[in-house]
């Protein structure tokens, strides 16, 4: 599958060069790439899930390493791994049931399995909402033996199992891949429509004559505000410009073209204006497992101001932004320092950076971090495509979307041992 390798390399290149902007685009492209990886992977008769997981993990490892700051890549890789596990599990349970009920006819078996995938795909897509199987219990009881078998099946343990069920496995060999791709399509669909799903809830949160504050630009926020506007809510928006990239200017422009009453302020004026604000609505770069938010720079200040004046601080995040990791040393490890030239003109200050004179170490340092970390206690509410959640509930959402085995994707053992 050389063409997939080309695709992967191309995507890795783009990630490295920071050519893909925005977590939505990144996650969609990641999912699409993984879909083609899966469709190109040759599945052996035994242990298909293991093969798929290995393939996805190998690619995922490279993708995550290409741009460790873009957490959405890791999220999607883990989601895909989770989907594979879930599908495998549902197939296995279905097969076991099928064996018990009707091991006589292959056709019947097939038809039954035809039904199952549809059901299970839906289950996975709505994994969070699935009350069918409580996810935490599920993973604890059933996933563990399965995933434990994954690395070993090829050598010893799986063989006997494979032999005993070889006939059955071969028959459902193509099924798993098919199901996974189905589920992936749904995931991609979810990612592309997450704006609408979030925006649908706008009316519940934005009330008549309210003043909303936001910072920088986020497409989710734009859609959210516009959805409320379409529902005939009249409200005002304060937009903090979001230095140094000033994307707030673009947002203000977009809002005005959609007919919203907009006020543009500087970032430093946020504290002065916050007392007039009814709600702060912002986008996020990633939502961490503890409910903390990695967000565009400046938002921590906004969150603190909001807390000071008891203004609700609402974060909009598609489910692809939920990251199963905990933020250790968030300001450094999960941040990206961009070029200082966004802050000041190199030519103007070039004499401050003349290393030829003086101590040879520059006296002027320009630091341009991209992200802020907003601790969970400052966040009032998360609005995801599945509804509104408290920060303390985020860990639960994450347990729905990811399986605990995939938290460390870079793990060597699967490939080494």
């Amino acid at each position, binding site marked *: 599958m050389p063409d997939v390798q080309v695709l992967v390399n191309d995507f890795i290149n783009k990630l490295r060069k920071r050519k893909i902007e925005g977590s939505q685009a990144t996650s969609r492209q990641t999912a699409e790439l993984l879909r083609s990886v899966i469709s190109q992977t040759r599945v052996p008769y035994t242990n298909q899930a293991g093969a798929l997981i290995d393939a996805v993990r190998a690619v995922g490892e490279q993708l995550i390493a290409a741009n460790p700051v873009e957490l959405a890549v890791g999220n999607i890789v883990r989601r895909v791994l989770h989907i594979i596990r879930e599908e495998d599990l549902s197939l296995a349970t279905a097969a076991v049931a099928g064996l018990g009920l009707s091991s006589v006819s292959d056709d019947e078996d097939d038809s039954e399995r035809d039904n199952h995938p549809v059901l299970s795909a839906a289950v996975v897509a709505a994994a969070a909402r699935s009350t069918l199987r409580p996810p935490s219990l599920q993973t604890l009881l059933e996933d563990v033996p399965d995933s434990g078998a994954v690395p070993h099946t090829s050598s010893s343990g799986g063989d006997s199992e494979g032999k005993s069920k070889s006939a059955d496995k071969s028959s459902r060999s193509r099924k798993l891949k098919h199901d996974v791709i189905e589920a992936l399509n749904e995931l991609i669909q979810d990612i592309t429509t997450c704006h609408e799903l979030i925006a649908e809830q706008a009316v519940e949160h934005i009330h008549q004559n309210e003043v909303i504050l936001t910072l920088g630009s986020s497409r989710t926020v734009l859609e959210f505000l516009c959805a409320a506007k379409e529902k005939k809510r009249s409200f005002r928006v304060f937009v903090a410009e979001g230095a140094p990239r000033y994307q707030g200017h673009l947002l203000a422009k977009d809002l005005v073209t959609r007919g919203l009453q907009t006020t543009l302020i500087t970032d430093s004026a946020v504290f002065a204006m916050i007392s007039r604000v009814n709600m702060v609505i912002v986008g996020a770069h990633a939502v961490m497992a503890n409910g903390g938010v990695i967000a565009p720079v400046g938002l921590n200040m906004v969150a603190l101001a909001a807390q000071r004046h008891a203004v609700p601080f609402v974060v909009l995040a598609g489910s692809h932004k939920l990251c199963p990791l905990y933020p250790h040393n968030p300001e*450094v490890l999960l941040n990206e320092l961009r070029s200082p030239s966004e802050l000041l003109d190199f030519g103007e200050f070039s004499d401050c950076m003349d290393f*030829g*004179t*003086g*101590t040879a170490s520059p006296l002027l340092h320009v630091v341009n971090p991209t992200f802020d970390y907003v601790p969970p206690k400052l966040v009032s509410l998360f609005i995801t495509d599945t509804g509104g959640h408290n920060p303390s509930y985020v860990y639960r959402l994450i347990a729905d979307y990811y399986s605990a085995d995939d938290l460390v994707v870079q793990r060597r053992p699967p490939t080494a041992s």
Partner: protein
Amino acid sequence: MGAQKKGATRFSEDPEELARVPLQAILLADSFTTKFRPITLDRPKVLLPLVNVPMINYTLAWLESAGVEEVIVFCCAHSKQVINYLESSEWFSHPNFSVTTIESHNSISAGDALRLIYERNVIQGDFVLISGDTVSNMSLTQVLKEHKERKKKDSNAIMTMIIKRSKSSPIIHQSRLGTDELFMAIDPNTKQLLYYEDKADYSKGAICLDKLLLADNPTISLHNDKQDCYIDICSPEVLSLFTDNFDYQHLRRHFVKGLLVDDIMGYKVFTHEIHSNYAARIDNFRSYDSISKDIIQRWTYPFVPDVKFFGNSATKLERQGMYRASDIVQSRSAEIGSFTVIGNGTRIGNNAKISNSVVGEGCTIGSNVSIEGSYIWDNVIIEDGCKLMHSIVCDGVVIKSGAVLEPGVVLSFKVIIGQQFVVPPYSKVSLFQQPTKQDSDEELEYADNSSGIVENSSMADTVDKSNGQFTSELLDEECGPTYELGTGGVGYIWSICEGSHEEEWRHSIAPIPADKLAEAMQTTDDDLELLTQDGSVLPPSGELKPDSNYSDDNEDPRDVSIYFEKEVEATFLRAVHENIKEDHVILEVNSLRLSYNKLFTDCAGAIFYSLMKLALETPHSSPSELCNSTMDVITKWKKLLKSYLTDIDEQIEVIQKFEEICLESAKEFSPLFSKILFHLYDKDLIQEDAILKWDDEKKYADEADKVFVKQSEKFIQWLREAPEEDDDEEDEEE
């Protein structure tokens, strides 16, 4: 010219075809200079690590991200190494980005390289011309668009140069990249480059612009705060121009200046200034240092150490601009300061201090080592207690315990520095002996001998003699001169030629020493003083009116004489007002004469001029009064004047000076010419021979010049008749 025209029309005819041509770039993987010697004896410059990544990768990564589809890498020096490196790297397997190499062994300049590329006929459309040591993150779309549009309108606009604002130091007239101050005249409206001078003579404090330039262009802005990024967008004509003008060698000094001067073809060069993006070229050790620091400070984002823009190892950025690779063994007591990069697999011992430095992969740094502002490449072993300041240490170097590297030291590959040895500042150490003959490469160092290598050396002298060989061959460790680099040391210290020793600090990676700065400051002040006296200080950057009158080269001697005369006059007036003894005045004037490199005749003229001026300034109501006062002054300062009028030539000079005064500066003297001349004669200041000779010389002059000769006709007549009488009188007296 016919060929050019044909080319031009061909391109203007079908712009559609032009648009479909993939964007190409020519990357010169050879700088055709020797500034990085002795390091470049082992490895080509483009493969030298810049913040632990070979330089060429920055250039290629940028070209790739800027949308260039095809890169032609021109390799000359160490071409095999470059080609091998590229083949083993991932650049050859890149989709949508093809890298091809052209190898040459006899090209000695960029001009040769471009001529060869023209012969190969690989360039189809506009291309980017860049050398393999350029770091940039600019986007090319805008400049390419501008270039194409200009080309469509005016087929003579064949090149667009990328420039960037960067103030150069006013003290030492050099940019932060260690290159000389650059003067450019640009038309602010069209951005056309009108003048380019990178070797401006600051001692004069002035640059010379052609008056035509000012006459032809309504507005010109003159800049000295622009930096040439050495990134050019060229049309294919550029290559054919190089072929037509076989003597073009250097891209700037010959090609650009050639185009600017040549008005027959009418080719034009334009500039494009980048603001927020970064672009710079590594030209010498100082720019290596500056650009490394810029990269660490992330100005080149996304080409920074923690982004894997090419197959480099993963590095994590920590607080205070510290980059650390994953596999580092670091002692708990080691201190790693800010803006430091530590490569993979490096071990750092107890109490080591590292700041503002780059350490490569697989290095071993002992305990109590202090490293400041240094660049340590791969697999270097630094034993305990060493001290490194602002130096470059190449691959495989071993520095034994207690050795000290003074600022500006460059240790080339695999050198061993002995125990406790102190390497003197600015020295370059290599396993190779210094080449004793200037080979073809050195010839490329046009007019710039700062890193040139001379025939013999003072420091390495003894070594060379003891070995008795002058070849530049690798020596075995056994026969290496052990005492030159301490006990157990291996390598040769390259000597710096006398003339360039002064200049060594300019291009070194070490900060400029304070005394040099003070010295430079002094001279700058002097220059400024002179300039302000002249009243024509050049504004650093700004618009010049076309009517401003700039002096040409040939007027300069006169300017100096004016200064000299002014100085003499000032000295003389001081003498008058403060009653200084004539002897002292003579002494002072003599010293002035020496400092301005003048002749006695000039002194005589200057003193006479100041005398007359003094006389003129004493209040007078009538010519006769003036005459009297002049005579008084002359009588008073007779001795002073006399000491400079020993020769007949000097006397004639005085007469001529007097003429000049009468004609130009003080017309009041003209009716008194003959009287004062007589007085001078009377006071024995001017001999009759001088007057007669002056008269003789004037015979062939035109009428206007003869006014004073005629006026003093009687006097001369009398002189001609007098001699016998005079003699007689003398005889009688005796």
